[in-house]
């Protein structure tokens, strides 16, 4: 997760205490991703457990400093040197929703797509307006903010294009007799959990 590695990369610049780390993260991400102090301390606990950071000095004001270990430095270098890979876990909620909706009877998919398109375009409008109200960045903090805004703009644009594409694909699939609802398949779930077994919810 990138919060963990981001904090580690900041600690690679020198020892920090919790509040300080939050402020550093905040200004380096243009305040686009607010973290609370609890998240910071939880993350630091896990980093310490994994041997990537260790406790350092306590200063005159009683601030507990944390410093990076050699293993932590290695981890930072690996993080910076490797791509962010979208895994199954980050698979898009919207893609799943649409895929499921197509298999359900009585769902107007064109309408599902349009509802999403309107929301996506509204997001894109807001981001564009926010960005256009901005002059060229005049500080490192503003540059960080702009980088994040641009990434949100491109993500929203990609989503809008994917919706157009899906609409065309579904229209063609429907014309070909595909894209029909899938009724429940009563024959299959032999290997499922027997109904009698009472399980505590996970």
């Amino acid at each position, binding site marked *: 997760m990138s919060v963990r590695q981001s904090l580690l990369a900041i600690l690679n610049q020198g020892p920090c205490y919790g509040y300080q780390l939050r402020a550093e993260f905040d*200004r380096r991400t*243009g*305040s*686009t991703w607010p973290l609370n102090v609890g998240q910071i301390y939880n993350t630091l606990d896990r980093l310490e457990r994994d041997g990537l950071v260790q406790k350092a000095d306590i200063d005159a004001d009683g601030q507990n400093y944390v410093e990076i270990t050699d293993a932590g430095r290695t981890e930072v270098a690996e993080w910076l040197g490797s791509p962010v890979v979208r895994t199954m876990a980050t698979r898009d909620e919207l893609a799943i929703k649409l895929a499921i909706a197509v298999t359900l009877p009585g769902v107007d998919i*064109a309408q599902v797509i*349009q*509802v999403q*398109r*309107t*929301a*996506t*375009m*509204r*997001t*894109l*409008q*807001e*981001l*564009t*307006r*926010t960005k*256009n*109200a*901005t002059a060229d960045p005049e*500080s490192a*903090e*503003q540059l*960080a*903010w*702009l980088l994040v*805004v641009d990434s*949100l*703009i491109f993500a*929203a*644009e990609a989503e*809008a*294009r994917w919706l*157009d594409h899906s*609409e*065309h694909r579904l229209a063609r699939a429907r014309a070909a007799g595909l894209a029909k609802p899938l009724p429940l398949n009563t024959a299959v779930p032999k290997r499922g959990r027997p109904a009698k077994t009472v399980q505590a919810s996970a």
Partner: protein
Amino acid sequence: MTGSDLLLQLDGVSMQYGRGETAITALAGVDLSVRRGELVAVMGASGSGKSTLLTLAGGLTPPTAGEVVVEGHWLSQLSARELATLRRRSLGFVFQDFNLIPSLTALENVSLPLELDGWTSKKAHRPALDALNIVELGDRAQHFPSDLSGGQQQRVAIARAVVGGRSLILADEPTGALDSTTGELVLRRLRSRVDAGAGGILVTHDARHAAWADRIVFLRDGRIVDESQASAVSSLLSGLPA
């Protein structure tokens, strides 16, 4: 907001091409208005009626039903001459296929609407050159359309639509032939023109360009099926850090 803010009103507008069994309903009962200072984007699949909507809004063809009102004038009540005058003075049209006159230079193409309106060509050249400069084509003023790239021709067409301060700009895919930086330039200029008191309709496929609009209407099969209006304050982001 006062009534005079209203630059364009489409009131229950429908358009049918042809008659009888082969008739095509391109627009079916569309209501849409554009105010001063407002840029409205129109999005929709190919064939959904976007170009037809612009054609009717620009008074190029009358609708088969409904009423088009431009700056308070009911187009159906105007004589052909009055309509032509209104179009020349108030409307700037960017056609999907540019519609430049091949035997005229870029500058002459852009001057033409002013000259048709009675300006001498000498007087018209100054604002025409200004308009070409706005789309960064001042150095191509003496070129003929055949000597210009598709994107450059498109920018000449845009200059022709905005020359002389017309109040309603109707643009059909005006960024289709432009690379993304030039497209952004054109959008920026269109936006500032609108912010200065004009109004505009922008037909586009490009989500990032449509996002410059205050409102986006979505057309499907000749009907407006939805609308997106940007809120003034982003719910997603705090503003620029100090």
